[in-house]
């Protein structure tokens, strides 16, 4: 079973998975490797990382030297295809014109979705992160514990390959022995920051990223992941052997043609396809879940984007993994006289509690880093270290004016030049040009550090989406309308980030590249801009107050699941992708068990 055209669709599948990113990739992988016949629908086009990834291309070959444009927001070489905050013909609307209440929604329309370009930061939620309400009375507890998911974190990390270390810090879980790949050495600016951050009590430790710092152990991992399934072991071992270790060049946002980092298209989909149990249909945009008279899902109606027509396909189980808000949209658009507010929505909670990550940043210029002897700092195409949230005790003692925490990501060193490069150096150079300007560039290149905070947003009643009553996309499908409001917790947290970074830059003997913001509202990055949106179909233990149970199974429709970020009922500072995959694997195991029992 391979990539197919609509004409090659089977009349019936065991499971339809909508979406091919982290959630869809993991769900389809787990099911197909265990013999389940899966159809994956992807709204975007087929994408081949091996032939389409710009490995080594320097920016002199790119239009505008690779600068960001509305067509390619993260620069020309970003892997994203047909994606961004705006997609032609596929609008969304905003309920408020107030800039602070605008949620901007990033989407990708390509095989593998956003996994092709993401930052590969793979942090586990800790025990506290599953019980936030019990700790501070805000938001919701998850209907599962860290211990329920720990084994699945191990499995995902072994499957995709994650570098990092076990530091045993509070609410920053260790992986099981032998799971993590060795972390790369810290860069000069990272090491310098590690030394001086100690004065401020900030622990700088290796970050966890889904990049193969060494090749995977294809001898032992497949048996650990697929006990009693020799065929799956063989297929996975082959796929692992085909992945190269990182060669320490080419930023991960471009994707990786040698499969040295995780993207669904290079890690999940090849072995799942090799199992013979997965069909993938590109250019197929799910429109609604088809329901039968008994109140069960019986398939999906989708738009064949190439031929601009609607088609239907049937299965015993339907899994939405289209990204949190897109899956919500499918639920809300599955309206009928029987389900006037969409399917799986008896709680009225579909669309509620959308969360992004709190973002804040500040940069500095560090004289100690000027003119360092030349050396290669490309590394693993992303950060090598980070600071996990470190103020649990202070917060517990009531010393902070906000709830929940953030971690700190780093940018340091001399990286492949792209436009804009060395813009606005006048504050350092006094306006030099000619040979002196070139000397100044050599001196200051690599002497800048950037710190980015990534923090937890607490779900609230004012941040949600519903269907716009008027606006439709180019296929006539109603679009989402977003409502947004930060609480004081997020705003104060963003201000705390900037204060911390200013102190840190000062501890490094550096100068700020701009003044800190006057308040939290100015410090916080725009809603949606961190692209960690989750929620909208939260899980819980009470079917009146949540959309799914702990297995990502909707309360109302037992054969309808959501395995993307939609069931998140909190959004810890830890980047959500690893947790999405762990939950998806666990949900897929549950589906397998229920199918075996004849319940699905």
């Amino acid at each position: 079973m391979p990539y197919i055209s609509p004409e090659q669709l089977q009349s019936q599948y065991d499971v339809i998975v909508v979406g091919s990113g982290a959630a869809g990739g993991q769900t389809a992988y787990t099911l197909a490797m265990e013999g389940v016949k899966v159809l994956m629908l992807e709204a975007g086009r087929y994408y081949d990382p091996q032939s389409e990834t710009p490995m080594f291309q320097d920016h002199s070959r790119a239009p505008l030297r690779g600068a960001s444009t509305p067509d390619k927001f993260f620069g020309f070489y970003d892997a994203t295809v047909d994606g961004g905050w705006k997609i032609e013909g596929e609008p969304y609307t905003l309920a408020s014109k107030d800039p602070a209440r605008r949620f901007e929604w990033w989407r990708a329309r390509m095989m593998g979705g956003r996994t092709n370009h993401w930052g590969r930061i793979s942090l586990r939620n800790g025990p506290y992160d599953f019980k936030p309400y019990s700790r501070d009375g805000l938001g919701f507890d998850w209907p599962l514990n860290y211990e329920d998911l720990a084994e699945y974190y191990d499995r995902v990390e072994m499957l995709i390959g994650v570098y990092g270390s076990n530091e045993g810090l509070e609410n920053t879980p260790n992986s099981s022995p032998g799971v993590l790949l060795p972390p790369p050495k810290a860069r000069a600016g990272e090491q310098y920051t590690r030394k001086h951050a100690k004065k401020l009590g900030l622990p700088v430790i290796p970050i966890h990223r889904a990049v193969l710092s060494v090749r995977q152990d294809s001898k032992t991992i497949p048996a650990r992941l697929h006990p009693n399934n020799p065929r799956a072991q063989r297929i996975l071992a082959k796929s692992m052997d085909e992945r190269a270790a990182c060669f320490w060049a080419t930023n991960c946002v471009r994707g990786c043609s040698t499969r040295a980092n995780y993207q669904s298209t290079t890690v999940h989909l090849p072995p799942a396809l090799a199992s013979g149990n997965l069909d993938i249909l590109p250019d197929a945009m799910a429109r609604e879940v088809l329901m039968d008279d008994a109140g069960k899902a019986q398939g999906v109606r989708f738009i064949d984007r190439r031929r601009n027509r609607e088609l239907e396909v049937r299965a015993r189980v339907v899994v939405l993994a289209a990204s949190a808000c897109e899956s919500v949209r499918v639920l809300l658009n599955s309206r009928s006289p029987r389900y006037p507010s969409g399917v799986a929505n008896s709680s009225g909670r579909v669309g509620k509690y959308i969360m992004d990550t709190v973002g804040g940043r500040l940069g500095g210029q560090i004289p100690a880093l000027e003119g360092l002897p030349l050396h290669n700092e490309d590394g693993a195409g992303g950060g090598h270290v980070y600071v996990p949230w470190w103020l649990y005790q202070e917060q517990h003692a009531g010393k902070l004016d906000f709830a929940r925490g953030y971690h700190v990501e780093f940018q340091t060193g001399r990286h492949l030049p792209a436009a804009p490069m060395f813009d606005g150096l006048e504050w350092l150079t006094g306006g030099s040009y000619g040979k002196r300007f070139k000397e100044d560039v050599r001196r200051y290149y690599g002497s800048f550090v950037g710190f980015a905070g990534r923090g937890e947003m607490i779900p609230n009643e004012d941040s949600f989406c519903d269907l716009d009553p008027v606006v439709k996309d180019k296929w006539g499908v109603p679009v989402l309308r977003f409502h947004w409001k930060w609480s004081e917790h997020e705003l104060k947290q963003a201000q705390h980030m900037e204060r911390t970074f200013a102190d840190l830059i000062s501890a490094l003997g550096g100068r700020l590249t701009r003044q800190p913001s006057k308040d939290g509202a100015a410090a916080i990055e725009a809603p949606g801009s961190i692209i960690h949106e989750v929620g909208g179909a939260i899980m819980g233990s009470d079917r009146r107050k949540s959309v799914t149970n702990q297995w990502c199974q909707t309360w109302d429709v037992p054969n309808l699941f959501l395995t993307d970020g939609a069931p998140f009922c909190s959004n810890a500072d830890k980047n959500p992708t690893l947790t999405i995959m762990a939950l998806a694997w666990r949900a897929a195991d549950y589906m397998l068990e229920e199918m075996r029992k004849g319940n699905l």
Partner: protein
Amino acid sequence: MAGTAALMVTERAALAQGEARPAARGYGSDPDLVRSYQPGELWPLSFNDHQRRTATALCDVIIPGEGSVPSAGDLKVQDFIDEWISAPYPAQAADRPRILGGLEWIDGESQRRFQRGFVELSLAQKTAICDDICRVAPADSPLHEPSHFFRRFRDLTASGFFTTPEGARDAGYVGNVPLATFDGPPPEVLRRLGLE
């Protein structure tokens, strides 16, 4: 000193802004990322011959050749700047009147001071003009707009030059090569930073 010229720059910038722009589309949301692109390939360029020669001369003042390292002009950075100001995107289009107006200003200023176009000036004469505008001038100064032009032109020249393999090497970039292992900073760097 440059009062008249400064007035002219405003007028000309306004004129440039109002010029009929060639209708162009960007590269879209799914361009081929693997092939190489040349300025002028995706959308039409704007400079006439005189503007291109003036831009080249200014590129060479900002980043001259040094030994075996070519100048910005040698590396055709002026074509990148032309591509930039001609692009059908808002951020780039915003630079267009400033760059086109500034090129006219600097040529007019050259005529006014030295009775020759900027391209024909000696390096000392070019430097004499650039020294007056290489730092951002106060808002009430007649050199305010020319100094902003120079700042932006220098930014673009730097982006154009240092993104080439020659320029990146000159800045001190030694990456973008495959390595078997990543060994972190060499001992000499750690010593300099007190990290041994």
